[in-house]
């Protein structure tokens, strides 16, 4: 009798566990790429923190658009969380460091803008569900087809005010020298302009030019040092009083990063450019408590898409397919 009981219980347990395995197996049939966010005890202190060695990497493919059409790029991406904050690490090859962003150069007689843009990487999450974002990704927000309700002069936005996206925008020239990524959000496109908005609080960058736009207005304040990659921060700038002191070939930053404040300062950035590659770490609290940010719940999965910009403006980018961000607990 005891033997029967043991056999019955063992069989029942085996069936239940077997069934659970079958049921809990990922039943999704789509080929959406997944970035796993492993939980770690201690927050990484930098780009070379040993915790990144253990994190699972995903090679995210990007397809070029506009001037990059038919070109491809790959970003090695890792993500971890501590239960309080989320950390992303991106690494991609880029043979040229681009932080010019129209910097001024004095040619001996006049100031001219240098040709050149900046390197950037951006991520888009849903704050409130954006219709079809989970399946179409940026195609419904950034690269909307002609005739779509939110297609307006190549602008960027959602179809209704109920749809909101959280756009993390790391800019090598305009945000990184301040140690942040620009924290912005996306909502319905309006009649006059796109749906991109800056998060509450200050930040962004300040244009360094005189009212007649002919020359720079600011230079590095005495006792201050230039920021990363020789970029002049707005906080370290002082009005130029003597233009004759400049020598031919002197350069000045045109778009001076401002130190962000409030909700706009949620995303911290650490980066370096070495051996023809960018390595960028972004971090943010899982839930900032701000309406203009996605609140990450580690029990949930999120759709997200990314774009890469190589010394280029908004239209010329490399875009990823929409992916899934999945937390482990």
């Amino acid at each position, binding site marked *: 009798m005891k033997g029967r009981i043991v056999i019955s219980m063992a069989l029942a347990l085996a069936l239940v566990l077997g069934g659970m395995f079958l049921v809990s197996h990922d039943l999704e049939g789509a080929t959406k790429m997944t970035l796993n966010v492993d939980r770690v005890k201690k927050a990484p202190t930098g780009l070379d923190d040993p915790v990144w060695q253990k994190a699972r990497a995903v090679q995210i493919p990007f397809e070029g658009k506009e001037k990059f059409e038919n070109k491809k790029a790959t970003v090695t991406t890792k993500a971890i969380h501590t239960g309080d904050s989320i950390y992303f690490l991106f690494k991609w090859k880029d043979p040229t460091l681009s932080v010019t962003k129209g910097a001024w150069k004095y040619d001996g007689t006049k100031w001219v803008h240098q040709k050149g843009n900046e390197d950037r990487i951006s991520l888009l999450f849903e704050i409130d569900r954006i219709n*079809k974002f*989970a399946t179409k990704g940026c195609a419904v927000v950034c690269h909307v087809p002609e005739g779509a309700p939110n297609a307006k002069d190549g602008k960027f936005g959602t179809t209704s005010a109920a749809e909101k996206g959280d756009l993390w925008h790391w800019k090598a020239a305009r945000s990184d020298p301040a140690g942040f990524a620009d924290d912005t959000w996306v909502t319905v496109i309006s009649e006059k302009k796109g749906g991109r908005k800056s998060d509450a609080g200050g930040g962004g960058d300040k244009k360094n030019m005189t009212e007649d736009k002919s020359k720079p207005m600011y230079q590095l304040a005495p006792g201050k040092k230039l920021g990363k990659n020789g970029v002049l921060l707005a906080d370290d700038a002082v009005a130029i009083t003597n233009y004759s002191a400049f020598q031919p070939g002197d350069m000045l930053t045109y778009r001076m990063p401002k130190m962000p404040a409030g909700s706009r300062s949620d995303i911290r950035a650490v980066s370096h450019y070495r051996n023809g590659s960018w390595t960028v770490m972004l971090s943010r609290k899982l839930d900032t408590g701000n309406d203009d940010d996605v609140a990450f719940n580690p029990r949930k999965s999120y759709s997200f898409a990314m774009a890469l910009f190589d010394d280029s403006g908004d239209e010329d980018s490399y875009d990823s397919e929409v992916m899934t961000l999945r937390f482990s607990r």
Partner: protein
Amino acid sequence: MMETQNRSKTLLEWLALDTLVAWVRDLEVSSHGLSWSRFCGSLSLVLVVLLFISGAFMAFYYSPAPGAAYDSVDYAQFNIPFGDVVRGVHYYAWNLLLVVVGLHLLRAFFVGGYKPPREMVWISGVLVMLILPAFIITGDLLPWDQKGYWSTQVRNSIMSSVPVLGDFLVRMLQGGPRTGIVALTRFYVLHTIILPGLLLLFIAVHVHFLWYRGISGPLAGEEGDQQKKVPFVPNIVNRWLFLFLVVTVVLGLVSWYWPAPLGDPADPTDATYVPNPEWWVLSLNQLVAIFKGPLTVIATAIIPGGLVALIMALPFIDRSPERHPARRKKTILIGAVIGSILLALALMGYIEHHLTPLE
């Protein structure tokens, strides 16, 4: 009567339930009902009760409209305290119920539980089992996620291949040519009102026949046990309540650590999504993969319909009074062959759909 008049009435007397309660208290059932081999019957009832309770909680938050259904499920699962546990219990309990009811039926087949005078006990039990997939089919669409939406399209396509009735059934179910708001409303009504009503009816019929025809006692050689009686309260009821508690805690923990999946919101324009068939439908799905084109009807109607008819008619096909499996070798062998074929098909399907990477 005098005594009742001289003292105040109890609550049960006020509610006129005293006679019923006394009857239940004095009720005795065969001690064989406590056997471990009957575990699946009690567990099925535990799971059905859990499904009704968890389903009722989820219904408080659910909105059956394509634009709102996904968000309402997402909200209930991730914003309501223990919402993911409730949905997880509902999700895992269904899957477990299919396994447990299947085992319950398999045991009845093995020990000849369908033999006279219990033919109707068997048939009503098969009806209970047949209604369960209908719950999953209707429930699958309710979250309005990719998996539910596209699985429904596959099922509709299979259903429409049934001759004569197929297209009509799909139109009736969907309320039109597309899976939209009317379909979602109909699936919701079926899942929460009509099917639960039918399930309760079938369970009542099953219990009715069990009561009047009795449970199938032990196989020959253990007849003495059948005469033993035990009180229904507390022997059966307490065991059942203990089982209910254990199952609730286990499923709650499973749901906490492995939450029920909620895929991406349904996108009817995303034809690239290929839903993987669930474990319980793998053999049928594999049949559809084997019988293609004009032969599809064999996989979608003839074989499944024939199997159901065979199972229902079993008490009238195997008419010998013998119950011991060792003396019913022919029936057991046929059952084993059919079972092995279904299992092999399911394994083939599992390898094809779950272990082979998508191209």
